[in-house]
């Protein structure tokens, strides 16, 4: 860890990726609960419905809907992270299609996944669930 465990309690936004923390690191998860109590946003990215995403997270990326539409979920962590990065840099689709990690990879799955990206953008940006209208599609070259 670049930082110390107790510092988790004082964070304003916590991004938990690929971790079932309450099960595998129960002591660290207590600091996460503490952070949440102190008003932190908690974003959980995981293909499973885990205790953390069901009980205390602000947004769970990797909801059932998303994963159902993209079987073989493990390849999709990076796109999710890129999405957040691109949201920040203002280039939402800059390199989604050209990353070397997708070479020979499941393009079709990625294309399906892309359908849900704008929705995630909206959810992340506004901190409220997106309206229930059909999501637009990011075109992949």
């Amino acid at each position, binding site marked *: *860890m*670049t*930082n*110390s*465990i107790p*510092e*988790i*309690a*004082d*964070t*304003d*936004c*916590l*991004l*938990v*990726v*690929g*971790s*079932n*923390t309450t099960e*595998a*690191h129960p002591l*660290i998860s207590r600091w*996460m609960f503490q952070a949440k109590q102190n008003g932190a*946003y908690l*974003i959980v990215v*995981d293909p499973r419905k885990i205790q953390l995403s069901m009980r205390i997270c*602000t*947004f769970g990326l990797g909801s059932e809907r998303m994963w159902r539409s993209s079987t073989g979920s*493990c*390849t999709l*962590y*990076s796109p999710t*992270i*890129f999405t*957040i*990065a691109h*949201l*920040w*840099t203002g280039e939402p689709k800059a390199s989604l299609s050209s*990353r070397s*990690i997708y070479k020979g990879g499941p393009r079709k799955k990625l294309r399906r996944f892309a359908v849900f990206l704008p929705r995630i953008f909206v959810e*992340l*940006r506004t*901190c409220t669930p997106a309206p229930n209208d059909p999501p637009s599609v990011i075109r992949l070259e």
Partner: protein
Amino acid sequence: MYAGAERSSICYTPGITEHSHGVDNVKSLANLAMLTGQIGRPSTGVNPMRGRNNVQGACDMGALPNVYPGYQVVTDETVRDKLQRMWQAELSNNVGYTIPNMMDRLIDGSLKCLYILGENSVVSDPNTHHVVHALQSAEFLVVQDIFLTETAQFAHVVFPTACWAEKEGTFTNTERKVQRVRKAVENPPATRADWEIIADLGKRLGVSMDYQSPAEIFDEMASLAPIFAGMSHTRLETGGIQWPCPSPEHPGTLFLHQGAWA
């Protein structure tokens, strides 16, 4: 939300690392933290939560193919010169094999002998059939463990060792904190501490490994690895210290990359 918050922190575990794209996943997170400036301050950073009690310590001590203790890279000539002088031995400046690599090489015969310590490869490595085939192909297999594990069943020689409560030393936890572990119970008569077995083996192979205690080994390591230079078993008696700790007065480091990252 992540980028705009005053302090944002990333936590991850093998859920993202144990994939064929594991390295890319981790790099993406590191890039995200650097892009958004969420690193080098309290309550920010990229925080892997390690899977086992001393996996951090094993990596810190150079149980990796490309580094010596304290993450000093094997291809660095100055590091190599320093360690060669200290250990009075000739060291290779080639990066070693990874575990999956070793298994492949056992099968094709370019690796003859494997010495496995405290690891049940048959159960914990990917592709069990492949691992079993590899271990059966080894010309000479040594396993050092507290149980006669599935892996040890394939060994030509098994060294029974003491378990964690039966030996002295340190464990390093996921926040880089080096902590003293003390012997609480006597080990069974036929077993010995890992360091005793290794030192004895070293001596029989003609290497001077005349250590009296784990504290002595720790001191040698601290003298060679700058990030541990300020630590000793005596100092750790009063509590754990987080590396880097470059001098005996240094309090340890709560968070990395303050001010700059290299």
